[in-house]
């Protein structure tokens, strides 16, 4: 294979599809009760040093409870997939949980601005970064989901984003045209928040899928957090709606309001006040430490965090916002 050009930065995961196959060969396909708590999930599936991916889109349909638990469990040296990450990234930076990063969108919270603490962490030089784009990372997951070691795309070419990536330029054997080849990525573990799941892991999300179809098919372990547990019969009544089949899933955590302070389509809007507070207190590291103690390290569970953020009254407001009952 003639390689015409290549990015200079490292791949953090092995793109060998046969090693991935060996893993998946061993993974159980039995439809058994997979319910766990967020504590158990972090204990069992998210050890120090593993490569983590988070579903949803930064502050939309994210598994906040598990991320908080990762911080409380003081996980370190993770690899992280900084795909469409925003508040999830902000959280993991707050805990300095990762030391290597595939980056497409990081340190920002979109229209809300940039996270001062995430920037500090990323400007510290402590994190190894390989650069990508939103589509190229989705394509890497897609290649993994397909059981092949690479995919070809037409972006990244000609830019420093390519140069600072781990992609390569190859020629099409049919047309001779140039393409960026991006390596398959099988994350060790993906955590995805959904609307509904049964105890076996059959999961349904509504609205946009972002890259969660690809992510749930590529990650070696898949953790589902769900707004609601439903019966298997409910899932089977409408199989067209299922997003993730049970045999991909390792654990199911029931977590109402689990995407808070992010948006959960059709259920509740993001808490923009709380998100703004994050970025504000991050400016002062000392203040930020106290803030983290109050909201994360000093609480025992996600429900307690919700209480400290305003509890049911706040959540009711966000439900109204989402459903356009209040502006």
């Amino acid at each position, binding site marked *: 294979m003639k390689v015409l050009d290549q990015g200079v930065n490292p791949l953090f995961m092995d793109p060998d599809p046969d090693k991935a196959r060996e893993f998946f060969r061993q993974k159980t396909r039995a439809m058994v009760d997979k319910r766990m708590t967020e504590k158990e999930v972090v204990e069992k599936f998210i050890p120090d040093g593993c490569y983590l991916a988070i579903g949803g889109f930064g502050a939309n349909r994210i598994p906040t409870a598990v991320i908080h638990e990762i911080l409380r469990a003081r996980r370190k040296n993770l690899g992280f997939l900084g795909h469409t990450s925003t508040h999830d990234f902000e959280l993991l930076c707050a805990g300095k949980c990762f030391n290597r990063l595939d980056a497409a*969108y990081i340190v920002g919270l*979109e229209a809300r601005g*940039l996270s001062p603490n995430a920037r500090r962490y990323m400007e510290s030089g402590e994190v190894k970064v390989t650069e990508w784009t939103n589509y190229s990372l989705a394509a890497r997951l897609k290649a993994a989901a397909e059981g092949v070691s690479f995919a070809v795309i037409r972006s990244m070419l000609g830019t420093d984003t390519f140069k600072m990536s781990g992609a390569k330029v190859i020629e099409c054997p049919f047309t001779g045209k140039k393409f960026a080849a991006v390596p398959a990525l099988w994350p060790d573990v993906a955590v995805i928040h959904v609307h509904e799941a049964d105890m076996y892991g059959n999961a349904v999300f509504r609205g946009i899928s972002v890259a969660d179809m690809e992510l749930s098919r590529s990650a070696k372990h898949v953790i589902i957090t769900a707004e609601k547990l439903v019966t298997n019969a409910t899932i089977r009544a409408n199989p067209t709606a299922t997003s993730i089949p049970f045999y991909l899933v390792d654990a199911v955590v029931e977590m109402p309001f689990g995407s808070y302070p992010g948006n959960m389509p059709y259920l509740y809007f993001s808490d923009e006040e709380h998100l703004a507070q994050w970025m504000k207190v991050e400016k002062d590291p000392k203040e930020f430490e106290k803030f983290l103690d109050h909201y994360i390290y000093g609480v025992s569970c996600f429900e307690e965090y919700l209480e400290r953020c305003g509890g049911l009254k706040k959540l009711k407001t966000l439900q109204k916002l989402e459903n356009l009952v209040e502006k």
Partner: protein
Amino acid sequence: MAPSYNTMEMMICVASRYLEDGKTVAVGTGAPCAAAMLAQKTQSPNLVILFEAGGISPLLPQMPISVGDSRTFFRAVMAAGMTEMMTTCSRGLVDYAFLGGAQIDKFGNINSTVVGDFYKPKVRFPGSGGANDFASFCWRTMIMTVHSKSRFVEKCEFVTSPGFLSGAGAREAAGLPEGGPYKIVTDLAVMGFEEKTKSMMIESLHPGVDLDKVKAETGFELVIPKQIGSTAHPTEKELKVLREDVDPLKLVIGRA
């Protein structure tokens, strides 16, 4: 007499005029989304708005705060995913995309990644997100930005997203599909690109702005055509729609 407006309103109105009816546009949050919504509610009712996370042609009830929030697929015709949107761009079905960044150079390349050493940056920005993909795939990329010397640089310190790279022929040589930057709308002027050299060229000056002002705020030599146009003021109608229907909460136009 021309109506009064702020620079953000000016940029949005001007950008919206370039979005033709019956075309597709991939937008982010903020000003680009406002420009697309304004175009839809004025001259381009059949403009199709797409969001990279999967929202297709929503009936936007308000400005989204994230390209993946629930507004971006509110009463959409489809709630798809990122791969669907990006591949739609890749195979040539998306006409316009809006980009932003910390630096833009004379060939329309954009830096939204780092200033300083990549491995220990002076400033770390978000990176490409979907910008590099849009800039690679879409037929015409649009840029809306404040015009300043620190932003309009001879050469980006880091090329996050491709414009015309090193100039004429460079996209083709790199393997990129046809496309590239189309219009750059700032608070001072509208710039396009010279056909032959693919260098940034001034096209029209906003009301009350002279060429020297633009030159002073641009860190490289702009191509100056024989004839420079004058940007038309935002119309009463544009401003009314923008203020009343597009951004009544002044989430974007209040930022100027």
